[in-house]
């Protein structure tokens, strides 16, 4: 056999193929736990477009004997009976089923694009795509429009140019290769486009009764809501409002660090949201969303005021959603705040509620809101 034969195995690696399959499996496993994993990291801001997840290599399991307390073996080298070749290590004890020790643990760091994750999840969960409401205002933007024989090299349309070449060559007596005549460049033009803006208000109850876990749950939920809305709107603004008996606007990183003490007065938060809407956004032009996370224990004396404030916000918003994060208890929305949103829904506003008790529910919650919103749009 000659060395010059190009062998198939130089072109194709089975090891790499099976390795890719392994990675795919790992990714599947990670995907199944994404809401949990994502909740652990501060990934909600715009700059973090990827999520890094450290994972162990998968093991293909076989029947194995359990690790023995003592084991005999054969070795080779300069050693006499009675020599102690290795001293007991304190950590050695209690290291049960650590399995990886004999194989030399290898950790992989998988990087996921948030956009990809969102696409998978939307596909997997069969979440509907929202229809963006078109505002009356317009903005101008560059759009592709038509072709020209001259243009900047970066806008050369290869496919189109190739077609031109093929067309010309099919004519009798044509020269065989590309000529400058074949080249086509994309043209840009300024056109007015309807504005598609969205503003999402995230309102979080940070009163004493909200535990760390509750807030993490809310955060995880908020994150995926942002991602889902971002699929639909070219520009999406986020506003973060936290409240106890008072309300404040926060920047995003601060927002999830906030923990307050004291009671819950939802109306303060809702009024703050309304204030911000009036100040900065025109409900006619922007699609406004409000998502509110709380454990539902609103102060009893706040009932009427909160109802008023909520209605004021709902008038301006395309949708208001309420998640009740109460890990541990399962009151299923039978709370003060729960009732407020139920009333709103009955009154014909676009509103929805969901009781979020565990990370497993995050997806249920996201699906709930998106399905509801999509139906309202139709």
């Amino acid at each position, binding site marked *: 056999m000659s060395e010059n034969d190009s062998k198939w195995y130089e072109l194709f690696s089975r*090891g790499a193929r099976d390795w890719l399959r392994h990675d795919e499996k790992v990714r599947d496993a990670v995907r199944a736990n994404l809401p949990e994993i994502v909740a652990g990291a501060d990934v909600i801001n715009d700059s973090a477009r990827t999520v890094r997840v450290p994972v162990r290599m998968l093991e293909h399991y076989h029947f*194995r004997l359990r690790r023995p307390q003592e084991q005999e073996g054969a070795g080779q080298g300069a050693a006499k009976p009675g020599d102690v070749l290795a001293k007991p290590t304190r950590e050695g004890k209690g290291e049960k089923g650590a399995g990886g020790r004999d194989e030399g643990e290898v950790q992989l760091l998988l990087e996921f694009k948030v956009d990809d994750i969102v696409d998978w999840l939307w596909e997997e969960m069969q979440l509907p795509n929202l229809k963006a409401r078109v505002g009356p205002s317009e903005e101008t933007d560059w759009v592709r429009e038509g072709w020209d024989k001259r243009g900047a090299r970066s806008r050369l349309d290869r496919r189109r140019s190739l077609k031109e070449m093929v067309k010309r060559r099919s004519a009798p007596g044509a020269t065989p290769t590309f000529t400058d005549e074949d080249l086509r460049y994309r043209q840009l033009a300024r056109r007015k486009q309807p504005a598609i803006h969205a503003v999402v208000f995230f309102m979080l109850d940070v009163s004493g009764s909200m535990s760390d876990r509750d807030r993490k749950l809310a955060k995880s939920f908020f994150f995926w809501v942002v991602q889902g809305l971002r699929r639909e709107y070219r520009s999406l603004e986020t506003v973060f409002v936290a409240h106890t008996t008072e309300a404040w606007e926060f920047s995003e990183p601060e927002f999830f660090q906030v923990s307050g003490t004291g009671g819950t007065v939802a109306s303060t938060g809702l009024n703050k949201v309304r204030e911000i809407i009036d100040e900065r956004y025109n409900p006619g032009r922007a699609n406004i969303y409000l998502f509110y996370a709380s454990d539902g224990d609103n102060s009893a004396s706040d009932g009427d005021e909160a109802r008023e404030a909520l209605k004021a916000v709902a008038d301006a918003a395309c949708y208001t959603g309420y998640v009740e994060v109460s890990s541990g208890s399962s009151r299923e929305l039978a709370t003060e705040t729960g009732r407020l949103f139920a009333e709103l829904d009955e009154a014909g506003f676009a509103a929805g509620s969901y009781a979020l008790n565990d990370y497993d529910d995050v997806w249920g919650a996201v699906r709930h809101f998106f399905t509801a919103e999509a139906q309202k749009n139709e």
Partner: protein
Amino acid sequence: MSDDWRSYTARIEELAARSGLIFHPVDFEAVPDTFMMEIAVYGLPVRMPHWSFGVRYIYQLIQRHMGHSRLFEVVFPGNPGHAYLAASNGLAENILVTAHVLGHADFSRNNLLFRRCQEQVSEHIVEHAAAHARQISQAIETYGAERVEQVLDAALALEQHIDVDQSLRREKYPEYLADPKPLVDDDFRKRFAALDPTAAAAAQEVRKRAPVPPHPERDLLWFIAHYAPELESWERDIFLAVREESFYFYPVFATQIMNEGWASYWHARLLREADFVPQQAYVDAIKCHSDVVRPIAADQQVALSINPYHLGFSMWEKIIESQGLPAARRIMEQDDDFGFVRNHLTRELADELKMFRYNARADGQVKVMEMELTALQESILAPKYGFGAPTVAAKHIQVDGTLELLHDHETDGRGLDLDRSRKVLDYVQRVWRRPVELHTVDQNGSALHLTSS
């Protein structure tokens, strides 16, 4: 790589034949290092796809980057045999490797265990494995990657659970118990038959169905392939393909010390006798030999494992020196590692090789023990029993189809790793399609009953 070494192949082959080696022709091929690495990962040049090989591949890549484990050659027995040499080998290395490969070719043609397995699996394992890989690719196209992977997860997890004492193509169990002995036609019978002719005749007719399995069955791949309640035929084919490859791997596994030792002995000897090899190449080759055939730890150091090349090489040198070549060839033909180590690893040799026994505790303490030859031999052989896997057998199929597996903890000395066992049960359940259970013991030796989830 230059092809210089090829000009030596024929002369080395001729020298080997003159020295008494008997081998099938061998096809030599130089392949890139990446391909060598894949052979090491898969065990065969072309083998079925499975993600677990991907894991091994990553470990191998890492090892290579750390500078460990360089592969010079891989050889596959058969007629003709196939030898793959690393393209990065130098001339001296390739001369050495050619001789080494011929040692393996002699071994695999004459060793009884190899011969038996080759008679059953065929002398064309490389081609068979490639055909399996093709067959599985077709299954993937027809049934989808997920389903095929599910079957391979189970089959490859049970890879070591075959019974090499049975033939590769064995018959299914008899369906009925052997007919009861014909009744003796004595006076009593005659009078009894006269009482009620129909009753006597009916008693003769009843045949009893034989239980499945009639005895605990160690060949789990075979058993599942033939007795799983709803296995589809393509799934059975995958199980049988994995099983056939295991039959091929078994002799390689069970004669490693002998086989590597024999090949190392012959590469050293042929090289000494090959007057046609240039001086420089000879010196380089000898250096390469001593890098491979040596204890794992250098000089004054201590290693907690034994290099099978070195052990086998030293044993063959002793045997040929003391008993002569014909006796050595007989041993080579008849033994596997169990017989070889027990019969021919002497106390003197063990001392000479500075071998010792040690005791390793779970807390990390390692202590050297008193030298005792039989115990030393058993320490070397312990990891080799039963293809290196725990003794697990299919014991019973319950009325609802539940498969009961039985771990023979008395033979193995302790119970199974529970987490892993449960995962294996899950794999198996997906092809058995009924619950799967396993009996073993916990760390205190009390009976334990695992079920698939």
